[in-house]
């Protein structure tokens, strides 16, 4: 089906009716992205609105950290300044990691392709008649990505603190470790790899310079972040799975469905 008269089937272009002549399975990648992202959104929404089963001592779900609302005992390591907030405490803080991922250059590519089909794949005509990109509201707001990155660094620090606290047992005695601790360690590793490989991070530490030669330290930082940045999309996926997995593990522990595997 032709997409639009101003596109590949327009009057000046080579007269070919097919919206693409690609013979490979170009639809697999956007379909997979659509399914996985949708599943994550559904899962995260349910968990965020539940408002319970997010703490199984010593583990706090990353969806609820820091727990600043009316949280269960032991979950609020940074106090409860929003104790009066009537809804789930996750809703207070999830906007920051969510905003970071929604405005992320990798995720933008992924969801523009998978959800908005703009384009669904390279050299496959998109179904839209008009296109203005990120020049108008609301998509012009993608330019705030660096602010969400600043917030994501803070969230990363908090999750690192949570991971340290996970080296305790259920009675909060130090020097213990369980499967939950291991999952949180894996998660925080991917979270930091994702956060530090961000394009805005790369720009902030040195990319914005015009003279690398005048800023040797920032140039060195830029080269390190550049190395990570190559795999930004991979870290985006890994950390998406790891954060959901830690939450699921805590959920299952909190509901008594499973018991924690203790290493020592």
């Amino acid at each position, binding site marked *: 089906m032709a997409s639009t008269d101003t*596109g590949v089937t327009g009057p000046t272009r080579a007269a070919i009716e097919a919206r693409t002549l690609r013979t490979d399975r170009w639809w697999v990648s956007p379909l997979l992205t659509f399914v996985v992202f949708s599943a994550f959104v559904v899962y995260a929404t349910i968990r965020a609105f539940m408002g319970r089963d997010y703490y199984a001592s010593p583990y706090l779900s990353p969806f609820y950290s820091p727990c600043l609302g009316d949280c269960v005992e032991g979950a609020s390591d940074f106090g409860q300044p929003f104790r009066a907030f009537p809804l789930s405490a996750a809703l207070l803080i999830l906007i920051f990691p969510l905003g970071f991922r929604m405005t992320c250059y990798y995720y933008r590519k992924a969801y523009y392709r998978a959800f908005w089909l703009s384009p669904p794949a390279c*050299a496959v005509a998109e179904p839209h008649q008009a*296109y203005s990109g*990120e020049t108008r509201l609301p998509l012009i707001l993608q330019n705030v*990505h*660096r602010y969400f990155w600043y917030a994501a660094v803070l969230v990363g620090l908090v999750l690192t603190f949570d991971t340290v606290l996970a080296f305790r047992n259920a009675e909060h005695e130090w020097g213990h470790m369980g499967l939950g601790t291991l999952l949180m360690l894996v998660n925080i590793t991917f979270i930091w790899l994702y956060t530090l490989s961000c394009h805005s991070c790369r720009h902030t530490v040195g990319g914005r*310079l015009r003279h690398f030669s005048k800023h040797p330290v920032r140039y060195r930082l830029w080269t390190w972040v550049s190395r990570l940045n190559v795999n930004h999309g991979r870290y985006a996926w890994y950390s998406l799975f790891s954060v959901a997995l830690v939450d699921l593990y805590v959920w299952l522990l909190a509901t008594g469905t499973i018991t924690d595997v203790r290493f020592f």
Partner: protein
Amino acid sequence: MSGYLLKLRIWRGDKDGGEIKDYPVEVSEGEVVLDAIHRVQGTQAGDLAVRWNCKAGKCGSCSAEVNGRPRLMCMCRLSDFEEDEVITVTPMRSFPVIRDLVTDVSFNYEKAKELPAFAPPERDADGKRRMAQIDVERGQEFRKCIECFLCQNTCHVVRDHEDNKPAFAGPRFFLRYAELDMHPLDTHDRRELAQGAAGLGMCNITKCCTEVCPEGIKITDNAIIPLKERVVDRKYDPLVWLGNKIGLRNKDYDGRTDS
């Protein structure tokens, strides 16, 4: 050397219309799509129009679409396909067709004219200009561009929306904007122009330009996104604005004028 009969299809026509026609042709091991096209031209269709030159992936002339994917025909190995696979070659579908596989790529030259040239400062007292090696190296990736315009062809902003062409320079020229904006000796501040006249905001960074670049230039990650971040510095970042007001700021743009 083993050979086989390639099931080749080629789009034939001009601006008034055309169709994809079958040209079964003998090919040999180690050949590329352009070799098959030349054999068709030499044996079956002497009037087949095709643009080519170096046959080495360095001149950027033989850009086309092979099974719907923007490719240089001279770098597209037949061994990448099954021997019984049908290979369909069409002209680039973003530009006005002239005849057969030849398109009118003058859109790109018009966009090149809109981009202010490199503007170095006055020479040093000894008559030279200087820049450090690491600053030279940063732009080398961008200098690999062979202007095949496959990135321009695959970019959906103009491929699917002809009406965007006046307002959008395209990835090849964002590459050039980025190179010059990062250049320590350029005296222009190109961020306003990149966002305004060149239409950087139209790009939704879906990375197809990077996927098709035969030189492997990371157009999106190393040019377009850094350029978007530079525009954010100038237009959307209140911290940078505040820093400028109180004197805590990046002085890299001192002495530069809007282009």
